[in-house]
Each structure stands twice: as C-alpha cells, then as structure tokens.
C-alpha cells in the first residue's frame, strides 16, 4: 500500500542531474529547432538510465515502478520540458503492451521499448462526426487525430472496433511507415510532434492478452496512469515557474528597488506557491489512488486533474504577467512552460470532462477515501 519513497527520491535526483547537465534551456533550443522535434541522443540516454523500463515488469528487466517513481521522473520531464516521448511511448504505450499484449507480443516488444529501439504512439482520439475506426479482415480503416508524437513513432497502437470479432473495441499494432497511411504531421504549441492519421486498410496486428482483459479496461487503466503522470509533469512545470518568478521578483528593479518588495506582488507570488502546494498534494493523492481498484479512483484522479488544469493555468498566467514583456518572449523559458501546460491540460481529457467525471463519482454521502 505504501509507495517507495526512497526509489522515487533516487530517481528524481539522478534525472534532475542528468537533465541539468544535458538538457538545459539552450540545449533544448537546439532540440526544438531540429526538424525531428526530439533528440535521438537523449532518447538513447534515457534508455541507458533505465527510464524507458520504468513501467516494465521485473521479468522483462523493468523496475515495475510505482506511481510515485513515475511521478518523480515526470516532474523532471516537466521542469526541463523534455521533448522525447517518455509519456507517449515509455508510459502510455508500454502500459498498453504490458496489459494487452500476449506473452509472445510482450516478449517481442517490451525489450525494444526498454532499449529505445522502438518508439510507440497511441492513436485513440477520433474527430467528432468521423466514422469510428474499424478493423475488417485484419486491415484498419478510419481516422485518428492528435496522436501525441505520432510523427516520430515507429509503430502505432490503434484502438478500433474489431469487425472480425463481433465489433468489440480492441487494440491493434500498425507500422507507422505503412504506405496505406495518409499522414499529416504537425506540432503542438509546445513543440512536441503530433499526427492526424488516415488509415486506408492498413495491415493491423491485434493485441491479444492471455488473461482476456478487455481492451476498454486496459485503456481506462492506462489513461488513469497517464492522467496522473500528466499531473506530475504539471507539478514539475509549476515548481519551475514559481521558482523562476520568485527569483525574478528579487532581481528585477523598478523605481529603484526590487519589484519583489511590492506587497501586492508578494501576495500574488504566495498565491502561486499555494497553488503549487495544492498541485503537489493532489498529485500525491492521485498517485495513491492508482493503487486502488479502478472504481474507487475516478473521483480523486479526475478531481486532481480538473483542479490542476485550472491551478496550473493560473500559475502560468501569473508567471507571464509578473515577468512583464519578457514573459511572452521566445527567449525566456516562461513562455515555453506556458505552452507546455496548455498541451498538458488538453491531453487525456479536458478540464470539463474530468470535472464531470469527478462530479459523477462524488456521491451524496461523505467523501470516501479518508486516508487516515
């Protein structure tokens, strides 16, 4: 029941050190300017550091890390705005392979995921109004949108109705380079790649879990984990914004003194800090909630995500505002954090969607799950 504080702490320390040495803001600028939108070198380093095996079962050489450790890494990913598909491939896709792959599929894929030689992306969202994706005779048709880092993925995990097996929703592996895919690659506002993909009868390999877990269950579970990971990423970003803003308030002078001596700005900085602390506490609660059965976790996870989406936006707005003109420039990290948070809030369910899920899960009795 208790999560492993020590492992999480060690991971946080080593990841922070690595990123400080290899991924500072200038180094990241080079990555951003690269047409690939990520660093192959950094990706190989992550494999070496074991980050890509974090969620792998121990029998595949993984750490089988708990949500606290995953969160520790994601905080660093956020605080340094790492561009590589840690979330898309190493967490989300790896989680899907782990729970939906047959033993053979896992044996084939997991080592490649762990050593970084294969990058996966999860193609799930469809545009409202589009016909749903479908697999017939082993070939997939339909359209997926906003596939996070679908532009650099080697293979795709695609959710689709399996017409060959009664129309049940299942997951399929697809070669991202397939000629039958019409692709539109673009970037999200934070610089990470994305893809809209039109499948016109692409050969698809069905993921076939030996234990028969329905795909819907696995997807919901992985999305819960991804949501919580995105909370931790937001926490990392928010901590960086609060720290850099407080620093700026001490350095920047106006009318002959540091602007941080103005009580109005002090109080607003405090409000940013309070939001940061709430985000931290809610992220922790959401991580603990992941250890509980799916039915019991929705309220806390979606509540945390809903609160954090708004809270992080407030922090970002205030950080920009207090940096004055500098806050909106390309040259300062503040505007990059601002943009990453926008994407963060849009992934894995909007604020409204999570708020609705939170409300639905909140019964009229006392809140469940009092920790003590």
């Amino acid at each position, binding site marked *: 029941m208790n999560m492993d504080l020590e492992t999480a702490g060690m991971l946080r320390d080593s990841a922070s050190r690595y990123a400080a040495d290899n991924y500072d803001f200038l180094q990241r600028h080079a990555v951003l300017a690269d047409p690939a939108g990520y660093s192959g070198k950094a990706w190989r380093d992550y494999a070496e550091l074991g980050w890509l095996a974090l969620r792998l079962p121990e029998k595949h050489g993984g750490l089988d890390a708990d949500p606290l450790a995953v969160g520790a890494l994601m905080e660093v990913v956020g605080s340094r705005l790492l561009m590589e598909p840690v979330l898309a491939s190493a967490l989300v896709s790896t989680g899907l392979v782990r729970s939906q792959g047959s033993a053979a599929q896992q044996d084939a894929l997991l080592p490649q995921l762990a050593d970084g030689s294969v990058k996966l992306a999860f193609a799930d969202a469809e545009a409202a109004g589009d016909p749903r994706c479908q697999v017939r005779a082993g070939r997939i048709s339909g359209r997926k949108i906003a596939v996070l880092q679908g532009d650099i993925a080697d293979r795709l995990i695609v959710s689709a109705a399996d017409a060959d097996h009664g129309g049940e929703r299942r997951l399929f592996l697809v070669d991202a380079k397939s000629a039958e895919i019409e692709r539109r690659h673009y970037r999200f506002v934070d610089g990470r790649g994305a893809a809209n993909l039109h499948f016109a009868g692409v050969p698809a390999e069905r993921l076939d879990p030996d234990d028969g877990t329905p795909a819907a269950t696995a997807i919901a579970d992985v999305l819960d984990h991804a949501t919580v990971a995105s909370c931790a990423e937001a926490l990392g970003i928010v901590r960086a914004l609060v720290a850099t803003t407080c620093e700026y308030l001490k350095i920047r002078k106006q009318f002959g003194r540091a602007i941080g001596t103005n009580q109005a700005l002090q109080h607003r900085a405090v409000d940013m800090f309070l939001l940061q602390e*709430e985000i931290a506490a809610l992220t922790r609660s959401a991580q603990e909630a992941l250890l509980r059965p799916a039915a019991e976790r929705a309220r806390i996870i979606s*509540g945390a995500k809903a609160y954090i989406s708004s809270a992080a936006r407030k922090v970002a707005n205030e950080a920009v505002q207090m940096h004055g003109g500098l806050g909106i420039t390309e040259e300062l990290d503040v505007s990059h954090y601002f943009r990453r948070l926008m994407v963060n809030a849009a992934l894995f369910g909007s604020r409204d969607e999570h708020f609705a899920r939170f409300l639905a899960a909140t019964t009229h009795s006392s809140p469940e799950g009092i920790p003590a």
Partner: protein
Amino acid sequence: MTDQLDEARDKARRLRADIRSFHERVMPDDLKRKSHLHQVLDKDDYVRWMRLLNDQGWAIGHWPKEHGGQGWSLLERFTFEDELARLGCPWVIPFGVKYVGPVIYAFGREEQKRRFLPRIATTEDFWAQGYSEPGAGSDLAALRTEAIREGDHYVVNGQKVWTTYAQWADWLFCLVKTARGEQAQKSISFVLIDMKSPGVTVKPIPTMDGYVHVNEVWLENVRVPAENLVGAEGEGWTYAKYLLKNERTAGALLGMACHALERLKALAQEKPSASPERTAARIGELELRLLALEAASYQAVESMMRGTDHGGEASLIKLRGTELYQDIAEAAIDLLGFAGVAWDPAALHAASAPPLGPEDAGGIVKDHFYNRAATIFGGASEIQRNIVAKGVLGL
C-alpha cells in the same frame, strides 16, 4: 519513519472510529441537536462538552503521557479535530487544553503544573487568551499592556481586545510588557491572571450575528502574584511562539468545511433551485476545492511528521480552509433565498417558535456572519500571506 507513520495511521483510524461511536452512543441528544442546528451554546453547554471529551481521555489527548495525556501523534491530533468537526460537534474550546496547558507543562514551574493542569483538563477553570490589543492585533511587538513589579506582585495596566469568551473566563493568560524601551521581543512576559482580581473589567463587543463571542478586557492596577509568571521574565515571546505551533494542525477547518458542504448538498436536495445545473456546478467547484484542501491537509501533517515541512503549511491550510468555509456559507445563504436573509433568533435558542425556513436556516445565517471573522482572527489572511512571502519564498 514509514513504520512510525503506518502506526500513526492505524491509531488515527481507530480514533476516528471511536469518535464516531462516541457521537452516536455517548453524546447527549440535546447537545447534538443544538450543535447540528448551529444554535447558540452557552457556557454550561461548552463545559459539559469539554468534560465529555475529557471523560474519553480526548480533551488532553495530545498532552504527553506524563501530564495525563495520551501522547497523540500529529496525525491523531489532526484526526481528532477533523472528525469532530465532520460530525458537526461543538467547538473544542482551545484556550485551556490546547493553548495554555502545553505552555504550562513545557515552561511552568512544578507548582503551577500541579495547580493548573488538572483543572484545565476537566475545564474546572475556563481560560481566555489575552493577546490582541487595540493597535496591536497582528503586530504583537506593539503591545502596550504593562506589568510593573512591586514586591511579590506585578501591577498590570492595559487593555486587551477580541478576547473570546472572556465573559465566562476564570483565568486569562496574558502577554504583558515587563520592561520598557528594550527590544520588543525581549520585553514581553507571559502571566496568568485571575479574572476575579480587582481591576479586571470585561466589556462585551457584540458582533453582527447578535451574540457576544469577543470582549474588551480592561486591566486597571490589577495585582498579579509574581508566582503567576510563567517561565522567565522577558521570554513571553518564546512561549507565545511555542503556543502558536500548537495551532499548526488545524484539522477542524477541513472537518468544518466538509460538514458545511454536506449540509449544503442536503439543502440543494430539499430546496429545488431556480437553476439546478448552476447549483450543481457551484457545489461541484466547492467539492473540488474541498478535495484539494483534504489532500493539502494530509500532506501537511505527513510532512510535519517526517520533518520535511517548509513552514508554510499552516498558512496554506488556514487560507484555503477559511475561504472555502466562507464560500460554502455564501452558497447556502443563496440557496436559502428569503430564509437566508431572515433574522430568526428564536430558532437559535432551541426555542418553541417554529423556524421561518428550514430548521437550521437561522444557524446557517448566524454562522455566516460570525465566520466572516475566520479570515481575520487567529492571524488574518494578509498576515498569513506575509508570513509565507517572507518565511518560505524569501521575498
């Protein structure tokens, strides 16, 4: 540490269960009802309540075992306050058991411990706190109440203000200046004043809920035996800070907000609103803030127990807890419509007249008024933000 935390969690879980069963089986119905309806409690009610708690060993559960307490962990203290408040129980009057008691056992002389501690535990003595003065609310360095040593007595002159329940108090613990012109923090001493002493006058300050919670306490040539000085002269500031640390857990805020929100939800069920979706959304946002407060509260307790706290936790909880509680109250007022603006004193005294609205509407209105002070008393929100700005952010 994890082991210790696990143990504390187990104990806190048991304590919570015990409190629920106490509430169900032991607590007298009249007290339960009065407090459930937010009616006015008088001194007798409070004394009865504190003694009931003491009978369970809870009134001083947080005291060390050597002084008759149970040596509760922070988590147990927190749980105790939280669960009572969740159940809508009366206020656990803190001035004796939570504030002055610990100062006496930590810094008092043996004779003082023997004399005062047992009567604090049983609320045979009702205590009040003499801190604030006109012109020195949050700014204790500006205190002006003077205590001049004359032989084996201090002669105290000055005025305290916002003194809660001074009208009921047997004793006042009091910050006084025992030296002039010196550095403010070294000139303050901590003395215990018998409220029956000649020269002590209590003047009520009626508040807009129509009741007297706070008072002015005038001290004119009040002779205080030197033996009623706690600790050393000039160390009052140190003791006051120690006492403030005992405020840190503040579990009652979470529990109160939780209880008030449950009441609000029930009200929304009883009284169909003109725009149910807006009401649901408003309640939902409050619920979400409660979730955040809950997470932050437990995180704060855990950090304090691990020793990884940054020192701003108490301010965070106070700021968020009081604002949330006030906003829940506002939502309830709005939902009540006309009943939320009717003044219904009869309903506040377990009186016979039928209430004008839902039977607890009068109490909700009364609490709404007095709870505007929640962001003012005990370190105003502005002061809390100053504390965090300087102490945590280094601004």
